């Protein structure tokens, strides 16, 4: 019984639900309290004890249904005795026993046998979908598949009508067993392995070059970027305070001690409040960054969701505020709209900066960080360095995130090197990992 719970917890852990030892003990106590009989109650209870957020809850519910849909609870304990006897069993007996199992109406016994075999084959170690075949074969073997095979060969050599019928029967038995084993192995993969595979794919996606991301991966990227954005927001959204020892806050101290005649029992020190990051993002959506554009917008969208007081602008030739679009529309619709209205034209950084100066200049103050997402390829137009210098002087700083490799900076129409002196930081951002690091640094600089 305990083993079932601990295996279930292992399945949860492999699906990225963090379960501590303490919680595992709680789960055991819970099951001891409520018993195994009422599955719905057990599901509610374990969800309460083990899953600590909404997303964890949905993972838990899915796994619970998968996991406890098998498992006739009492079967596992018998396995020890039957194991030894099976290995020395006569092929004929074994075949007989297995065909008994495979008969209709014997589902319960078959399920129990499958469970035993799963145990012996170590099915819970399954990690990848490619292992399903291997594990289902191991299970059939554990049930006595070799003996069955031997008997089948014998029957095939018989060459009498009786022997033919027997062979056909055994083939059917084998098929039934293999199917059942395979089904069980697939379920085990769903429970123990699927999450692992997903994690692996996420890992690959996060380190993949952004320009190489295909349309099919976009959904995965969307989730990943959202995760990254959420992580960054959690880390940085709170206002920070630090007590400055040594500086007395006279006003608050007097107020706090008014009840004791102003004798300063309770001394209050001055606190310095840290600014919440104020961020302007200017995103290039022109033709030259076409490969990255969806990605840049994805990032913009997620950042907007995660950091409430962020202002976002997009441009290719003319610059436009896209706060409304990002706030009110679903991701795909927002991207489409931005690209239709602003995107994929020919770039002019100069024009964009002068638009920005005209309409949004008042948004820049000494607390503002300006993040520019783009490649700095301006079609040989005037880069308006004068404006850029002006922004740099007035804002806290400017960070430029460039999807292009450093080797290409300054080649052709790229004016990146001329902007670079005014930027506090200019990074090459090629993968999601780079990006997370860059944005994290931007936000950390406030603390």
């Amino acid at each position, binding site marked *: 019984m305990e083993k079932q719970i601990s295996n279930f917890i292992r399945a949860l852990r492999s699906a990225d639900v963090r379960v501590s030892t303490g919680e595992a003990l709680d789960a055991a106590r819970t099951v001891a*309290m409520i018993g195994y009989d009422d599955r719905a109650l057990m599901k509610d209870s374990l969800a*309460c004890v083990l899953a600590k957020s909404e997303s964890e809850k949905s993972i838990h519910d899915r796994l619970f249904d998968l996991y406890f849909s098998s498992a006739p609870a009492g079967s596992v304990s018998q396995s020890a005795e039957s194991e030894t006897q099976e290995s020395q069993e006569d092929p004929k007996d074994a075949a007989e026993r297995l065909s008994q199992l495979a008969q209709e109406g014997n589902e319960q016994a078959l399920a129990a046998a499958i469970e035993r075999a799963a145990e012996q084959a170590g099915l819970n170690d399954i990690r990848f979908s490619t292992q399903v075949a291997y594990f289902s074969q191991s299970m059939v073997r554990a049930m006595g598949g070799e003996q069955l095979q031997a008997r089948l060969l014998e029957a095939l050599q018989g060459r009498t009508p009786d022997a033919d019928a027997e062979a056909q029967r055994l083939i059917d038995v084998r098929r039934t067993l293999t199917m059942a084993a395979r089904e069980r192995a697939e379920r085990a993969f769903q429970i123990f392995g699927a999450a692992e595979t997903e994690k692996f794919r996420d890992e690959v996606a996060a380190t993949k070059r952004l320009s190489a991301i295909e349309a099919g991966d976009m959904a995965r990227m969307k989730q990943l970027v959202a995760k990254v954005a959420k992580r960054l927001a959690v880390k940085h959204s709170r206002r920070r305070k630090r007590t400055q020892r040594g500086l007395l806050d006279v006003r608050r101290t007097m107020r706090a001690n008014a009840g004791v005649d102003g004798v300063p029992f309770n001394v209050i020190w001055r606190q310095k409040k840290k600014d919440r990051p104020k961020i302007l993002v200017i995103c290039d959506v022109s033709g030259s960054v076409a490969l990255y554009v969806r990605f840049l917008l994805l990032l913009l969208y997620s950042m907007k969701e995660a950091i409430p007081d962020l202002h976002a602008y997009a441009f290719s030739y003319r610059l436009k505020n896209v706060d409304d679009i990002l706030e009110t529309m679903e991701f795909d619709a927002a991207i489409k709209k931005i690209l239709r209205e602003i995107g994929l034209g020919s770039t002019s950084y100069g024009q964009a900066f002068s638009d920005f100066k005209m309409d949004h200049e008042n948004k820049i103050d000494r607390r503002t960080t300006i993040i520019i997402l783009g490649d700095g390829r301006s079609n040989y137009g005037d880069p308006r360095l004068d404006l850029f210098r002006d922004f740099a002087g007035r804002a806290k700083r400017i960070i430029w995130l460039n999807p292009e490799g450093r080797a290409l900076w300054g080649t052709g129409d790229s004016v990146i090197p001329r902007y670079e002196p005014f930027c506090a930081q200019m990074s090459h951002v090629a993968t999601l990992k780079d990006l997370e690091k860059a944005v994290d640094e931007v936000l950390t600089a406030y603390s």
Partner: protein
Amino acid sequence: MAKDKKTGYEPLTSIEAITAGLGTSGYISTSQISTAVFLAHGLRKPILIEGPAGVGKTDLAASLSKWMDLPLIRMQCYEGLDEGKALYEWKYGKQLLYTQILKEKLNELLGGAETLKDSLAKLSGFEDLFFSRQFLEARPLLHAMQQDQGSVLLIDEIDKSDEAFEAFLLEVLSDYQVTVPEIGTIKAKVPPLVILTSNNVRELGDALKRRCLHLHIGFPDHEREQRIVRARVDGISDALLNQLVRFVQSVREADIKKRPSIAETVDWARTLLLMHASTLEEDFVRDTLNVLLKHETDIAAIAPAIPKMVREATGPDARGRLASGYPDMG
């Protein structure tokens, strides 16, 4: 449930008993909620409740305390909440006053002592006068520990407090004890039933989550919402109740900023009742929509759809029954 009142926690013996008991104090529970309460009692663990505003997180604590006849001790969290306000405070004024009054007595007492050292020795012969329980002012957490019968401790909106405070809570939540340096550790005689609520303003720390059972209360389904409104609003007709709940449910599915919660449904039901509405009508809905929706943009988003939604809410429902005049819904 009357016979259980003396023993405090006794009624929490089965999940059905909890659902029924909460019902007596007007809280319509679900199996998840009752299970969480049952486990919280059985495992002696706090419950952390998350969910949108106004779905009855705080109410659960209030109803529990009402049903079990235990004192409800509520601590509202906010940024800057510290030990002094949550746990205990020394009564400085009283200490000061006592010092003044006892000054002469002290002089007499210490009169015989020649040196400073002597008087110190004499003084330490007495027990600590000023840092004793007499001068301890209990704040919610300590107060909850001191209840002889046990209590329901509600730590409301924990996500609004600082991270440091969260860490400070850990001792209280895992061992049901608090430490006052001058006195020592005070352990709860009967562990309080602790309920924490969070609106997810920020992600809570893992350490805290691990010590709690987690319960998510979402928006109720049609049936439960009807029962809740019926329990809260006297004299509402079945037809109107059914229609308005269906309307609210469909509003929740729309793409709006702030989805109406149960509290708003109840307010709206009261409003409609005041206006003597017997069935849901377009005009009534249009006039009172601001009770249900709290954002100008949300109202603007829903307004054009009102005729259609009212039609759907008053028409036959999915099970093919006529909503209006159906006698015993819920």
